[in-house]
């Protein structure tokens, strides 16, 4: 075996393979250790999303409330949805609605009152929008503005400067500066879920 060949060709390959093996083992180990917490966080986020979307005010444990009051309906044509027992005797419909955002798809949980068809709450469970811009759809002021409205929502329209002349359109909602595509995606997601909720209510 040519020593030059070993030094220039074989050693780098063997070294790289060894370092790769060590690095992958290390990352794999950390993944195994953190996996239970990561999965638990995911489930908690999903339960919290159903809770927030149905505008439930929790007094006790989230998991216990979820087990007692939430039914998942998986056989629907447009994908699964949740039925939540409201404290007031009226059930809430929580739809999972996806739509394309700026960098990837946005998954929203939209809650409706089954009696009045009014939106109870919205949470954005999964998205990869730009942190500090589009990702601000997670902030309470943005999510809470949909509560109590029936939609459908329309194109981006600012609040009139002179508030004495005319009022805001009923379908308007506050946007996030610098996140036009995200806001537009949210509008489509909301409108789609409103249509789905109507269809589900009519089919009842």
């Amino acid at each position, binding site marked *: 075996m040519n020593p030059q060949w070993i030094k220039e060709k074989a050693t780098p390959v063997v070294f790289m393979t060894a370092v790769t093996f060590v690095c992958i083992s290390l990352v794999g180990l950390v993944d195994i250790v953190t996996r239970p917490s990561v999965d638990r966080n995911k489930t908690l986020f999903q339960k919290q999303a159903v809770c927030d979307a149905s505008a439930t005010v929790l007094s006790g444990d989230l998991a216990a409330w979820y087990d007692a009051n939430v039914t998942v309906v998986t056989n629907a044509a447009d994908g699964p949805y949740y039925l939540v027992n409201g404290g007031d005797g009226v059930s809430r419909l929580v739809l999972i609605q996806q739509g394309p955002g700026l960098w990837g798809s946005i998954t929203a949980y939209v809650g409706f009152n089954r009696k009045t068809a009014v939106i109870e709450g919205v949470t954005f469970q999964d998205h990869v929008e730009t942190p500090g811009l589009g*990702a601000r759809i997670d902030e309470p002021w943005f999510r809470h503005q949909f509560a109590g409205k029936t939609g459908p929502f329309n194109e981006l329209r600012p609040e009139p400067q002179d508030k004495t002349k005319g009022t805001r359109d009923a379908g308007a909602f506050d946007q996030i500066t610098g996140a036009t595509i995200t806001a537009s995606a949210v509008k489509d997601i909301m409108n789609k879920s409103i249509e789905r909720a109507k269809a589900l209510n009519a089919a009842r």
Partner: protein
Amino acid sequence: MPGKIKKQFLASIGRDNPVFVQVLGICSTLAVTNVLENTVVMCLGLIFATACSSFTVSLLRRQIPGSIRMMVETLIIAAYVIIVDLVIQATLPTISRQLGPYVGLIITNCIVMGRAEAYALNNPPLPSLIDGVAAGVGYSYILMIIAFFRELTGSATIWGHAVPGFSSWWVNWSIMVMAPGAFFALAGLIWIIKTYIVTDETGGK
């Protein structure tokens, strides 16, 4: 030795600062500085990644074949960054969701690779570790200054909380939370520092 380490540490914070002197790591400086909380988590991740990868590269510096040294460095950096990402996902799930892809992008941060190439390959492990921490700290405090002013002027909040006596009358400068605001803030900061603090052409005072 301690004197040398202190000098080296202070250099990264002052006249060799990675952000305003070497102008490295600008991508993340611009990207994550619109909200202070995200910036702090990002900085901690970067300090950890720079310190650990410099230490590891330095440990292996006599074994790494010259022809593949950058591949090995990238691999080591990537491993540490993925570990940081997993730990944040497990322990700080809310912040992990807000930071989205940016933690993973520490892998491509020029400072991490820069320190491994320029320092760790030629120096023993302990000084390399300190150099990594120093570079990380030098990067972090600049980012936090920028994030402080961007969040304050752009959203009238600090760490997501309203500032008493300020938020009520302040009209948000929306441009400050957008990408151009980051350029203005960074350029302004470099201008101030180069004019008043690090004035010497060849180094600090």
